[in-house]
């Protein structure tokens, strides 16, 4: 049950959430509490705090943020606009159930879930769907290329790079190869205020893809 007072100071909430995230990332708490439990606490506190303020998001303002200040189109795509590097968010507002779990769903469990989308913006590393993992390769001439991993096997790797170009290498032609389990997405904890987060979430939830006939 959420116990946060309804008129709690917004800045305090943001700082509290950030502190918890830093605690998690820094591993300050170690006394038997699992990382999953900690993440759940942060998720709950953040969602609780934001929810307690009963902020109502505005999809239009959210879209403006998405395409402007947030620079989300640098990585994401919605319908026909934006990069193909990050996950396509054209249907991110459609609920897809939880049957597939975070390791299966291309967009993770956040799809269609406002609280999950908030968390994804504030702490992108909290849950990175398998299909959203990144890859970093270094060619033998020292060129570093990163991208969203599409597949790899014992001998080859396929990914889409930051320029939305499909790339494939034989691992034997690489000096380095690494699957990155952290998200390349920056946290918006310090970049957006709570109202802006609510607006963005409202916009994302409105993205349900083309209506079915």
């Amino acid at each position, binding site marked *: 049950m959420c116990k946060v007072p309804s008129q709690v100071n917004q800045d305090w909430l943001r700082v509290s959430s950030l502190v918890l995230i830093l605690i998690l990332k820094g591993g300050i708490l170690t006394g038997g509490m699992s990382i999953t439990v900690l993440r759940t606490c942060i998720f709950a506190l953040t969602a609780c705090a934001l929810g307690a303020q009963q902020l109502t998001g505005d999809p239009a303002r959210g879209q403006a943020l998405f395409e402007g200040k947030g620079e989300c189109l640098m990585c994401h795509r919605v319908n026909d606009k934006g990069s193909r590097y990050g996950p396509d968010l054209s249907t991110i507002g459609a609920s897809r159930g939880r049957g597939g779990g975070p390791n299966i769903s291309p967009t993770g469990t956040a799809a269609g879930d406002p609280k999950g989308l908030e968390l994804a913006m504030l702490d992108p590393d909290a849950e990175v769907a398998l299909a959203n*993992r990144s890859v970093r390769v270094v060619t033998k001439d020292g060129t570093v290329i990163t991208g969203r991993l599409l597949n790899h096997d014992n001998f080859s790797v396929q990914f889409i790079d930051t320029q939305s170009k499909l790339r494939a290498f034989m691992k034997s032609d690489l000096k380095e190869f690494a699957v990155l389990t952290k998200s390349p997405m920056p946290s918006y904890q310090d970049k957006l205020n709570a109202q802006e987060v609510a607006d963005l979430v409202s916009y994302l939830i409105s993205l349900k893809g083309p209506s079915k006939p």
Partner: protein
Amino acid sequence: MRHPLLLASLSASLWGPLYGQGVTFDRILNADKEPQNWLTYSGAVNGQRHSELKQITPANAKNLELQWVWQSKSLEKYETTSLVVDGVLYTVEAPDTVVALDATTGKTFWTFPYTPAADARPCCGRVNRGLAILGDTIFMGTIDAHLIAIDAATGKQVWNTEIPTPAETPEAKGRYGVTHAPLVVKDKVIVGTTGGDGGIRGYIDAYDAKTGKQAWRFYTIPAPGEPGNESWPPGDRWKTGGGAVWQAGAYDPESNLTFWGIGNPSGTHNPDQRVGDNLYTDSVVALDADTGKLKWYYQFTPHDDMDWDSTQVPVLADIEWQGKPRKVMLWANRNGIMYVLDRASGQFLSGKAFVQANWLSGFDEKGRPMRVPGKVATPEGSFIMPTMLGATNWYPPSFSPSTGLFYIPGWENAGVINYLGKTSKDTGVTPMADVKLAPNYRTDAEGFGVVRAFDPKTGEKKWEYKMGDTTWAGVLTTAGDVLFSGGREGYFYALNARTGEMLWKVPLGGQINSGAMSYSVNGKQYVAVAAGTSLFAFALR
């Protein structure tokens, strides 16, 4: 235009006895003397999955090339290891359609279509892992619990026996079925039943090869009054105890024992509801091949709370053990332990982990595993390695008499959080087998497939070949010291069986969920493997 039947008869006249005539049990017992054929699921009754063919070697394996592809009409997983008898290859289009092909071209001689009952509900796929042959007759178990005899020359049905459902579980009828290759011993055809997760009472049956009449039945879950029933709680829990049999057995002619691996107890994640060791689940049983009477058993995982079916092929080998020749059974178990047992007595000789295994601390003087306290299913969950899908599973290992090494396909770095009363949760990514290639996003820390070579005399690992994805593929070795395997990545590959060196690989476009086999026709050695929904044959160019 040339007529296919004309081609077939022309082939027969040119290449001699193409049809499966006269595959006596003596021929089956001496399968190593006719390595041009692959007469049982494992190549021989000893379960070694080893071919005596030597044409393909580490030096020339790079010259392997595709000879033919046969595409199944089925979209189910293709888990079959084919048989080859005198130039004719017998395979199964999942679930239960038998096809005879020219082993040099992949062209079809005949098809025996079979449509299982609509209410057949086998666990984990409508699959068939293989066939058996005796005389001129092919034998197939079906997913709706029939055993069918088919004329090897014509593809016509000889007899069709419905395997009787145990009286204790009439409501589980749809869960009984056969997914493994039958084993022929003398004049009998031996099969078990799938369905261990579906509240069945497991069994192993023998049927007369000529008539299809049941000869004996051994229940893998003993009834009250039978030895072993005391390992179940009082009441009726034994009636639905599980203990399925879904991989092929082996046979030792010297002792006349046939060996079979038994699956998990039903209700795996509710172990508190079945207090006791739950015999003979997760065991190997040694049965008199004539009577089905139990001679000995060894239980790998007493009171299983992890779903660690002992559904592996028993591998019989004659090795030097502590300085003396010994007839042993090698067993790489789903629980992560590689066992050496005396196959005459069942005596436990050794057990060593072949992957990371944190659930046992060792064995007592009788060979019973000692569980690590807390490494059991708990309400809050307990981290256990290997994963519930296993350090290995049904996909078959190999023993090479040439190298003396035991080759195990398995998974490393895979574990689960085991919850009491709930399905356990993977800690990494541990996917089931599938037909199509699937994207792999995994890191090594989250699990990978591996083929490991062990010296069974010492348990020492000699080499390993690591894959990027996990595997559901078996291992074949040859007297040319070449090892063949594959995995979910879709590569079929050849390794030097002595060193693990990669010799050759080919991407086949689908997951490899079967064990490869080898045969020869007109002096040319072939290696055949199923991948995706097709069967591929390779030979040297």
